[in-house]
């Protein structure tokens, strides 16, 4: 491995792979786990950015995936929230095998397009499917660190589609953000069969976006993230509803998420 290059704050630099140390692990849902990493010489990040993770087997075989940063820039450590795909190559290692004290190769932070800061303003319309909620939660956590006056200037709404109630990522923290930082949250469950869920069911459709999002006249900044078919369907509907395409930013997680 090459020497980590010194971080140049705000300055151009290629990204070095660094060996992070897992400081803590905690459950985020029935299928997802949050890893808190200590990354040496971490230059800081913006909400919405991600890291690349690389696993190298003894025979040299490499697997590489991207994971959004779940924590706010203001938080200590770099948190990743990973959903386990039973037949996946990388995610089961991250959710089931890694233990505190273990090392993990990462490079980042990556991205300037799917990133948001309070100064960029709002209103903020966040639409997430599955683990696509992770970078959106980083934005809400970042917004929570701003003062109440700054938050009042940036109203925020989260539309979150999960398969089942037990698959909802960081449900308690979403309720905290909703109650303490004035976020409107609409949760919809696509495959929940249990009767205890009395909330909304079914996919995010045009009616839900029209009802729970802002009208195009409010010019919200939309961030849409999740499985590729979800992201493309939601972005298309937002544009059809009259939102400016350049105000609809997307991040595709691939076949799952």
């Amino acid at each position, binding site marked *: 491995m090459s020497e980590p290059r010194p971080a140049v704050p705000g300055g151009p630099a290629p990204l070095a792979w660094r060996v992070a140390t897992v400081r803590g692990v905690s459950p985020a849902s029935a299928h997802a786990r949050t890893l808190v990493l200590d990354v040496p010489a971490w230059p800081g990040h913006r909400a919405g950015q991600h890291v690349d993770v690389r696993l190298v087997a003894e025979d040299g075989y490499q697997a590489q995936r991207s994971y959004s940063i779940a924590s706010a820039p203001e938080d200590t450590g770099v948190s990743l929230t990973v959903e386990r795909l039973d037949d996946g190559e990388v995610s089961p290692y991250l959710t089931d095998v890694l233990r505190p004290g273990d090392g993990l190769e990462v490079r980042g932070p990556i991205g300037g397009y799917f990133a948001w800061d309070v100064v960029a303003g709002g209103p903020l319309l966040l639409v997430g499917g599955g683990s696509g909620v992770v970078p959106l939660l980083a934005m809400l956590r970042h917004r929570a660190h701003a003062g109440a006056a700054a938050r009042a200037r940036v109203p925020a709404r989260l539309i979150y589609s999960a398969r089942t109630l037990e698959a909802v990522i960081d449900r308690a923290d979403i309720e905290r953000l909703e109650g303490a930082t004035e976020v409107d949250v609409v949760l919809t469950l696509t495959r929940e069969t249990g009767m205890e869920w009395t909330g909304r069911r079914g996919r995010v459709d045009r009616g839900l976006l029209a009802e729970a999002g802002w009208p195009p006249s409010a010019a919200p900044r939309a961030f849409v993230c999740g499985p*590729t078919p979800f992201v493309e369907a939601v972005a298309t509907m937002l544009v059809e509803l009259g939102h400016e395409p350049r105000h609809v930013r997307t991040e*595709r997680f691939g076949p799952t998420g």
Partner: protein
Amino acid sequence: MLPEEMRLDGNAAGGALRELFARDVTAGLATCGGCGGARPVGALLDYGTPLGVVLRCPDCDHVMLRLTQVGGWLRVDLSGIAILALPNVPAS
């Protein structure tokens, strides 16, 4: 699974592109050499693998960028991009 359901976008390519450009380019604007439309690099479609990038125009499907890393070489084909405009303040 259909290739359209597997594809990623320029965000996912951000780390690999940073190897080449030494700065974030996902927030930059790329003008398609095929249809002339301009899009943020983060919004282009990526049909590559985690180890190689193939960015296509979402409007006309033109291949705008190919990047591979083989045998210690970074190889890039940028012939499908007419103009790449980057914010003059490094974004990350």
